[in-house]
């Protein structure tokens, strides 16, 4: 055991709930970012799914709002070790968006306004595992937390839930994204503590 600071406790954590290894519980909602917050006016906002064959499916904000939405309650686990449990969202399931998309691609690269990217297997986006979320806690998703809309894929570390999502590119090859090319794990399962490459 290394050096310990006498009497230092830090932020309250470990309140007796089961968390993935190495995580601590928070009750606020920390904002972490890699750059300036993009500002995207709704009349120019668009979400796209680009298939490996070059087809593009697009939705404007109005079109997104017209789709059936779900209100999932999920736990969030950030690779920086905080976890926030029981968070309420509203968004469109990726199953709904993929309904008319013809693709056999295995990999997805998610890209955001402002240039952020992250990658994951297509199967991790489907079967009720992911949403394009536009409300948090009953209110419009704030820009600092990824608004107008972000990807929400809570079974992976939160860096995979790309804020300010702009589209998903489907590919036959895996293409590591922003943090994956900077040393973070390619997949990012919090329950297997896959934080860094090689974990």
């Amino acid at each position, binding site marked *: *055991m*290394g*050096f*310990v*600071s006498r*009497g*230092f406790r*830090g932020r309250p954590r470990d309140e007796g709930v089961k968390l993935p290894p190495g995580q601590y519980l928070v009750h606020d909602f920390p904002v972490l970012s890699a750059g300036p917050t993009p500002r995207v006016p709704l009349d120019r906002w668009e979400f796209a799914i680009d298939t490996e064959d070059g087809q593009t499916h697009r939705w404007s904000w109005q079109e997104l709002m017209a789709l059936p939405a779900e209100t999932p309650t999920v736990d969030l686990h950030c690779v920086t070790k905080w976890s926030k449990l029981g968070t309420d969202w509203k968004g469109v399931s990726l199953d709904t968006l993929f309904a008319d998309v013809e693709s056999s691609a295995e990999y997805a690269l998610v890209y955001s306004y402002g240039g952020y990217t992250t990658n994951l297997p297509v199967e991790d986006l489907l079967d009720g595992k992911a949403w394009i979320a536009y409300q948090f806690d009953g209110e419009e998703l704030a820009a600092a937390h990824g608004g107008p809309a972000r990807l929400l894929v809570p079974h992976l570390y939160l860096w995979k839930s790309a804020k300010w999502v702009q589209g998903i590119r489907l590919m036959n090859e895996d293409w590591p994204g922003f943090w994956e090319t900077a040393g973070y794990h390619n997949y990012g399962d919090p329950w297997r503590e896959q934080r860094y490459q090689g974990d």
Partner: protein
Amino acid sequence: MNGRRLVWRIARLVEIRDETPSARTLVLQIPGWPGHLAGQHVDVRLTAEDGYSTQRSYSIAAPADGERVELTVQRVPDGEVSPYLTEELTVGDEVEIRGPVGGWFVWRPNGTAPVLLVAGGSGIVPLMAMIRARRQAGSRTPFRLIYSLREPGERYYAEELRLPHPGLDVTYLYTRAVPDGWARPVGRLTIADMNTGGWPADFGPECYICGPTGFVETASDILLAMGHDARAIKTERFGPTGG
């Protein structure tokens, strides 16, 4: 080849000096400390018993003095680290320190250009290290300090700056409350303040600005508008990770 990669060292707190009701100077003894330059900072790391750790950066407040390193820490409401350092840590306790770091925002006593120091709030800390380094070296380089803060009760090093320092001029400006009879009304730093308290651009001063981001940007813009050379302006911003 000089230099070696930095490691975490264990420092012992040997003395405490309260600068204000919410800011405290910690004097640390660090065995093996290699010395430092005025303007550099250290990283402080705290570790809880369950292994959780976090760190913050603090500017060194005094010039190199053997194994002694002084930091002035402002207690941030709801902070995680500063309440521990300013309220819990007592003389005899140990803390992990890495440093010194920073080679750009430094002042060495061998220069000839006059120096302008512009401090916003707790940005005074590294600039005070420069003032103290100047005195320690017996330097005659003309120094001017413009120290912007909310009110007189929040001044760090008040007694020390009240003492006569030949060749150092100190101008205070207050943004929220002023002492009775104070000539300059409450208000943020302006070009007029920089004119009265600073150096003309054609004196070619080295300028050091330290404080919160907004303050640093305003001060920097003013100096550029006055014609100071951008390459002679060095800034250090205190960011949002403080606490």
